[in-house]
């Protein structure tokens, strides 16, 4: 800097800088900060390296996992269940074209999603929305004679396929709806001929490819009902109305509709594969149902049933693992073909399937309930029942006491559990014996019909008794709900 003015400026700048008092900071502080920064950098680099490695390995695994080449042979039983039921499996559905009823031939009012009379909209499984399906209200059974008050309502939980309409059953495959399809989409198009037997079941692949599974179901059905593929069309995701009920990775139900061309059978075939009777629409055994049911020739009553309703023929078959398959077809369909199709154990839920407890026998449950709840000097007139199981009736004694009593059971695995509802005035837990057995007691509000509800959440079933008469002895209910007979295990 030769310019005197610039040199003067430089001197002033240095003088100014000398006047700046630098804070006294120990060098150790800077060393410590440096070490922390160094550590952060190293951790970040290690994390980035690990993440990159994971991504690379994941991509490698995915690209190497071509299901058409590596899927294992079919096994029929998904992983075994746990005793703790899931909280609220979700239903993803497009539309069920078969019907309107609840499982196990049960609740005739299952179309009433949730307990509307409780003011709680049912947790309907929205279309691929992941919301919880609703559990029907036990007292909402179609029972004009009983006039059961709202004292037995089950909480609105559980993986019930409850979105289907309660009214008319479609007689044709429903028109494509604008609702979204389930998220699992296979990345490949079918390449095999429709008549080829399915040799590589996709039910064991992971992740589950929903449409691929439904296409596989279609192939299995075709083997039984239309081997030549003259009528049954391959699965079409745009018209198949896939319907699923699941909680996370655990499947409770899966189904679809398949088109049937020619042959005077326009409605097509509808398939439901479910973890248990509580997950399918099956009205046989319900007192209020107009279904005409019988046991097919050669089939065991406890595992296979045939029903004719609304111009359709339906068959339900319980597989050895507890899964239930319902095939609904035109009424002129061959009964034997449908039975064989429903019993085909290749029709199994994909991936990790929920496992239901054995279905309680309605007759045993009804008799056991009546024996426990009704004394000899009292009267009981049953007004409704279904195979969920549930029994509704009127009780009376000589002292002009009386009312409606309902006893029912719901499987725990699909979410049935005690919930203190808003229609309950009070909720208490009652320890009924020295072993510490606890039952739940809810006193209903007057506007909800009054009375009480007693429920015991057992390992397999949640068993409930409700009475519209609050003076009805609760101890009888305690004895009934805690009976070991209602807790079978598979």
């Amino acid at each position, binding site marked *: *800097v030769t310019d005197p*003015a*610039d040199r003067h*400026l*430089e001197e*002033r*700048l*240095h*003088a*100014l*800088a*000398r*006047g*700046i*008092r*630098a*804070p006294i*900071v120990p*060098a*150790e502080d*800077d*060393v410590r*900060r*440096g*070490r*922390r*920064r*160094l550590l952060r*950098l190293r951790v970040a680099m290690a994390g980035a390296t690990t993440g990159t490695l994971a991504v690379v390995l994941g991509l490698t695994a995915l690209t190497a996992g071509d299901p058409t080449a590596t899927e294992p042979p079919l096994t029929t039983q998904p992983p075994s269940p746990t005793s703790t039921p899931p909280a609220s499996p979700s239903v993803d559905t497009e539309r069920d074209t078969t019907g309107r009823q609840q499982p196990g031939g049960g609740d005739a009012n299952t179309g009433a999603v949730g307990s509307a009379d409780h003011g709680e909209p049912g947790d309907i499984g929205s279309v691929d929305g992941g919301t919880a399906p609703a559990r029907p209200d036990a007292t909402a059974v179609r029972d004009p004679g009983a006039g059961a008050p709202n004292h037995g309502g089950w909480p609105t939980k559980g993986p019930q396929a409850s979105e289907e309409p309660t009214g008319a059953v479609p007689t044709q495959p429903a028109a494509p709806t604008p609702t979204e399809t389930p998220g699992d989409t296979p990345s490949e198009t079918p390449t095999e001929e429709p008549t080829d037997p399915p040799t590589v079941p996709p039910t064991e692949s992971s992740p589950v490819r929903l449409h691929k599974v439904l296409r596989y179901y279609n192939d299995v059905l075709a083997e039984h009902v239309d081997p030549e593929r003259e009528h049954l069309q391959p699965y079409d995701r745009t018209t198949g109305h896939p319907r699923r009920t699941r909680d996370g990775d655990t499947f409770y139900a899966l189904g679809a509709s398949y088109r049937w061309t020619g042959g005077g059978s326009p409605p097509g075939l509808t398939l439901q594969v479910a973890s248990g009777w509580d997950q399918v629409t099956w009205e046989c055994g319900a007192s209020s149902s107009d279904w005409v049911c019988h046991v097919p020739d050669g089939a065991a009553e406890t595992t296979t049933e045939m029903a004719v309703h609304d111009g359709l023929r339906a068959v339900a078959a319980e597989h050895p693992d507890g899964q239930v398959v319902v095939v609904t077809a035109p009424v002129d369909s061959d009964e034997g073909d449908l039975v064989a199709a429903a019993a085909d154990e290749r029709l199994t839920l994909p991936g990790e399937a929920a496992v239901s407890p054995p279905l309680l026998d309605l007759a045993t449950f009804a008799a056991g309930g009546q024996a426990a709840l009704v004394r000899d000097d009292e009267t009981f007139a049953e007004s409704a029942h279904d195979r969920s199981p549930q029994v509704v009736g009127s009780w009376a004694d000589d002292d002009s006491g009386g009312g409606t009593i309902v006893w029912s059971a719901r499987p725990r695995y699909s979410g049935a559990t005690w919930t203190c509802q808003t229609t309950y005035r009070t909720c208490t837990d009652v320890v009924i014996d020295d072993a510490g057995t606890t039952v739940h007691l809810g006193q209903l509000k007057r506007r909800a019909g009054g009375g009480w509800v007693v429920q015991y959440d057992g390992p397999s079933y949640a068993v409930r008794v409700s009475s519209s008469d609050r003076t009805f002895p609760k101890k009888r209910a305690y004895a009934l709900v805690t009976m070991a007979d209602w807790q079978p295990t598979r």
Partner: protein
Amino acid sequence: LGGTRDDGFTAYVAGRRGHLYRTAYLLCGDPHRAEDIVQTALAKLYVAWPRASRADSVDAYARRVIINSHLDERRRPWRRESPTEEERLDRPAPTGVTPEDSDALWSALRRLGPKQRRVVVLRHYWGLSVEETAADLGVSPGTVKSQTSAALAKLRSVLLADTTRGGRS
């Protein structure tokens, strides 16, 4: 290895921290931001110490880190506000320069843009050549020259005007 790094770094910090702080202060004109810049720069320097210590001049490395840290500081949204004049009111008058001179110079420096201020600090406080300054700032020597010329012209005019006002008063 850690001991070697710590020893060399500690010795450097003990000897040059004040100079780095003053550089940062001249760049940003704010004591707190200057301390932030220095701390950040020294932390970066610690991480890079093995490489920096092998370089010809640790000072050059540290200086560039200071400049870059200053740039980073300015880019942070919460740093975009300008410090007020009052921030220096509680500072003692620097020795060797009158309070009036100090205020006039500070005012002149504040009126420079960030790029011109960096050029002035590097060239007239650090005493770097045009080429060294250009290398530090990552610009061409021509840019350094033009910015130096413009900055000095502005400083002269500001200082002259300030001196004139001081003379009138």
